[in-house]
């Protein structure tokens, strides 16, 4: 039987337990086919109904010298220096284990300031007026599983693993894009100790 090399980065299936401070995710819009598997998996995993969602895929197109059409699978980036956390008046947004940025519904008063200040559209407003956002599937990580979205993503557009390895993987993918005449950029590749670092890396077109 042939083995498909889906992702060059390690795919975390039933890992013995993650060192959450070192894990990350690579979201690569150049590989996204807009199938919304991640969106639905996220809603299934976190029991979100209807239009409530922590992840949203946006159809994007840009006409310049060539037509750039891509799908942007948008969700919380788990910044090292999160603006939502600083703005939240009630402490509903706080660091969880390993630097995951957690949102606690029961403390949320629905002021929606976090959704306003997040530069990446990572915090979503729910139908009940409160906000909600990606938890990096902390409950799954604790069981040694990877997050729901990366587990189903059929194209490697959402990949989970050691952040270090994902940074290298992103570099390779950027090189490959360059060979096709496409300029991509990696976002969130800063230092996790200082500013500009994100647990979730975004390769954007």
């Amino acid at each position, binding site marked *: 039987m042939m083995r498909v090399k*889906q992702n060059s980065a390690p795919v975390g299936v039933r890992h013995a337990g993650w060192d959450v401070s070192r894990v990350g995710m690579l979201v690569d819009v150049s590989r996204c*086919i807009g199938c*919304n598997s991640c*969106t639905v998996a996220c809603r299934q*995993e976190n029991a979100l109904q209807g239009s409530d969602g922590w992840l949203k895929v946006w159809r994007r*197109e840009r006409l310049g010298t060539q037509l750039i059409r891509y799908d942007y699978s948008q969700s919380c980036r788990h910044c090292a220096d999160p603006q939502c956390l600083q703005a939240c008046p009630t402490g509903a947004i706080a660091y969880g284990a390993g630097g995951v940025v957690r949102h606690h519904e029961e403390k949320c008063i629905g002021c929606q300031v976090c959704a306003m200040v997040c530069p990446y559209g990572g915090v979503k407003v729910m139908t009940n*007026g409160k906000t909600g956002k990606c938890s990096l599937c902390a*409950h799954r990580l604790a069981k040694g599983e990877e997050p729901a979205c990366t587990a*189903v993503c*059929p194209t490697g557009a959402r990949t989970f693993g050691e952040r270090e390895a994902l940074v290298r993987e992103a570099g390779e993918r950027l090189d490959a894009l360059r060979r096709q005449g496409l300029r991509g950029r990696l976002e969130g590749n800063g230092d996790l100790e200082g500013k500009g670092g994100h647990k979730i890396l975004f390769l954007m077109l």
Partner: protein
Amino acid sequence: MTSYVRTEVYRNRRLPGDEGKLLPSICSLCNGGCGLLVRVNDAGYVEAVYGDTGNPYNQGKICPKPMEIVQTLYGAQRVDHPLKKVNGIFQRISWEEALSLVTEKYLEHWQTSGNSAIVGITSKIGGSHSKLALSIFSELTGLVTYGTGPICYDTEENVRKAMFGNGSASAPLADAVEAGILLIVGNNPAQTKAGQFHWVQEARYRGTKVVVIDPRYTETARQADRFLQIRPGTDGALGMALLHEVIAHGWYDASFVTERTNGFEKLAQAVTEFSPVRAEEMTGVPRRFIEELAWDLSTRKPGMLWEGRGVVCVNNAGNTLRVFEALMAILGNVGKPGAGIISHINGYGRAKGLVPGADVVKPERKRSAEALYSALENGEIKMLLIAGNPCANWPDCGRMQQAVSGLDFVVSHTLVLDDSARLADVVLPATHWLEEAGMQASVHRVMQWKEPVARPYAEAKSAGEIFRLLAAKMGLPVKYFPDSPETAWEWERTHNGDIAGITVERMRRTAGGVHYPCPESGEEAVRLFQNGVFSTPSEKVELVGSDVQELNYLDLLAAPGNRGLSRQEYPYLLSTVKVAAHYHTECQYSDWAVALEKPCVEIHPDTAANLSIREGDRVRIETPVGSLELPARLTWTVPRDCLFTQPYFTQTSPYGQVPANILFPAVTDPEGGNFVNKNIMCRISALEVAGT
């Protein structure tokens, strides 16, 4: 600013937990055959669906559809008991009463009007057990049924059968990783087989050149090495130019052509006029790219072809499919690893001799799918058995609804009270594929066995069970009906030499399933025609059919559905296209799918500007058979003057949308008999401006 917090929606979320069991299944939606793991709680209800990491073909990856399906399993929309319509209102009845009613009507119409007064439209009959039971019932009664063929693949199957003697895929998708070039024509597997699309990416990663031919810049095109944007309906001209190039330069596999094919001279003759220069005029694809593709096909061997509904459900499909498949044949791209034709058509032949000749009843009449409409309308047909949703999925569905309403007796075997079931006199609750055992074939030419993961919902029964009960009531010999999915498969296997080696046991223990054909000896064939012997009477590839006319290029404006229409009156071309979140009309009951996909019509911004249409404006689309209102979505990815919408949405679902099939005439491709859901002439007008 105050904010009102509604607590009930979001706060009381109950996460799918770890309790219950995780059971394997095989997705039975798109024929991708992805392995699933289903979380079933202690009460026996399905809670969540995941990808099966142990399945070698999808390795845990899935598209959104099987997850959405969970939301459609339980709830108000699911039919739970047999129903009978009394004065226009459905009333609950027992299975006993329902089957007696059906029997009484069946026998009455059979006796008074003959067996062809009853027909079936059965595209959603169920798994392998139900399919076999239906075919046995048909043999015993002469019932003619229409499956998915006319609305999906008839032309593809017929053309391939005529050329190679076998209509199914000749190679597994997994072979793409060994191909030098993969040609994807009128096909968007990134949406329609999203869970298996990584095979295309993997192939590309390993060096296969992926070339996509499509009028739209699709999700698949974005992932290709080369995208050729073609004028809708002109793929045949491009294919003929490729043949012209390959033949003129002598780039074909000469020994394969002489030893293994018939009709090469006629083929060469038919394409002499199709120079790349002429093809450029017709298709809009620059000549140098046509020449480049011909060269690539000749030098990057082996090569594979994957055609989609964009060249099958069109009014000139026969010619188009024939030229592309002939191209693969003369290049010698058959029967080798990395060569051949990929398709979701996975026919494996019929079980023969299950009903002895003496008990077989022949249908008194057979009608083409196109002729079915008038037979339903003019009283020839009295009774209809439905398992599917033809009142939304068949073309000219407004006419279909009218025709069905006028029948004396209609039975619908269904999961939900959809557009077709509402017109029925008796509704029978059907089992879901997650509740039924059976063999599921896949785009990798494998057969996988799935067990039921949940017990049938409420009083639901599978068609396999119903036909057995019905036969007993009708006084037909029950002994011909298998009593379980396992027995059904055992009977099929032992009466069909091509799958004789594939036991349920073997499928159960083989992750990813067993390739077929696989005779008694047990040796699987990964791909067809590996020994160079074809299933045609001549044992060679028939490059041209008995009728050379079939090679004549058919212009889409002169083909059925468009012929005779005025271009002034109907200046645009309309097609339906697929999205990943929907499958037929099933997924529209999932509130996730509803939140993700809204019906719309895609229009090129220049065309929209000419018509003063802006993003989100409601527009009216009209064809000679129907009209429809939709919001506009402006996108540069579609060609000018061409409109694209989605075929899934219906009036009785949460969408409350008139189905797009209302716009398509019930005409078929002249050669292959497929209904058409692309490239139909239409007009469009702005209705109201968004936001006013």
